[in-house]
C-alpha cells in the first residue's frame, strides 16, 4: 500500500494526474484552492495505491510533493 501527498497551493488543475493514475485513485474535488480552481484529491479507501509515482512524474507543477510505498 502506498500514499501520495498533494500540495494544493501548487496545483493548477490541469487534471493530468487524474488520467495518469492507472487505478483512477486521484479525483477532481469539489473544493477550490485560493485561485478558485477545483483541486484534486487522493481517494484510496481500499488501499489500492502501490506508490508507482507515475502521477508525481507527470505533474507539471510538482504539486504531488511526496510519494510513499
Amino acid at each position, binding site marked *: 500500500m502506498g500514499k501520495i501527498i498533494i500540495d494544493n497551493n501548487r496545483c493548477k488543475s490541469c*487534471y493530468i494526474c487524474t488520467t495518469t493514475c492507472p487505478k483512477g485513485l486521484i479525483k477532481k474535488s469539489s473544493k477550490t484552492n485560493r485561485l478558485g480552481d477545483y483541486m484534486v484529491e487522493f481517494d484510496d479507501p481500499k488501499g489500492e495505491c502501490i506508490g508507482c509515482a507515475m502521477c508525481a512524474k507527470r505533474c507539471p507543477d510538482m504539486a504531488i510533493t511526496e510519494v510513499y510505498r
Partner: protein
Amino acid sequence: MQQQELKEGVNIGVNAGEKGMVQVFSIPKSMKENFRYTFCPGCDHGIAIRLVAEVIDELGIREDIISSTSVGCAVFLYDFLEVDCVEAPHGRALASATGVKRARPDKVVFTYSGDGDFASIGLAESMHTALRGEKVTSFCINNTTYGMTGGQLGPTTMMGQVTTTSPTGRNKEYFGYPIKVAEHIALCDGTAYSARVALDSVPHINEAKKAIKKAFQVQLDGLGFGFVEILSSCPTNWHMTPEEAHERVRNEMIKVFPLGVFKDVSA
C-alpha cells in the same frame, strides 16, 4: 532508500503516519524552497526543470553549476533552481555560456532555452557553439510556437499548424519547412551527444531523464557539446486542454520530430 518521517499538515491524503513506508518521490534538493511554478497549467517546462534538478542532485554538481539562461518562458528557470545563473541577451545563451566555460573550465555550464531562442534568433550562436565543440550542455524546449509572446509561427512550427501569424496554417510556399534541431546539431563535428526526447508519458519522461544525464556526463568527461531537444506542449497557445495538448505531442509531433539519440561519441 532511507525511511523518512512522514509529514503532516495542510495536504490532502490518507492519514499520514504509517511507519515502514519508503519515500519513492520527493522534491529535488536543487529546487528553491517554497517555489511555485508560474507557467500555464499543463506546461511541460515544469517537468523539464524537475528532471534537470534531479540530474544535478544525482551527479552531485550543484555547487559547480553555472546556468546561462535565455529569453522566453524558459527564462524563469532561475526563479526555481537553486543554482548560479547568468542572464544572456535573446538568443545568445550559448555565446555567454562559452565565455563562462572558458573563464572557469572547472565549472559545469548549461543553458536552458526554448526553440525561439535556440533555433530562431540564436541559431548562429547555437550551431557555432556545437561546431566549436564547447564543453557545455544545452537544452532546447520545442513547443512548435513562440509561447511567451502569444503563439506566433516559429522555426519549428509544423506544416499546416495554425498560429496567430499563420491563420491559414503553415504552408511551404510562404513559410517554408520546420527545422529539426537535434539532427542539425548531430551533424556538427564538435557535438558529443544529441538526442530528442518527449515529456508526454511516463516512459518518455524516464527516457528524457537518461538523455539529460548523458548530456551532462559528456561535459563532465570533456568530450564536447551535449544537447537534448525536449518536445513540450503549449496548451494555452495551441488552444487545447492539457490532456489534448499531450495527445497532440504523442500523435502528431513525434511523427514529425522522431525521438531518439542522433549522436553519441561515448557509445
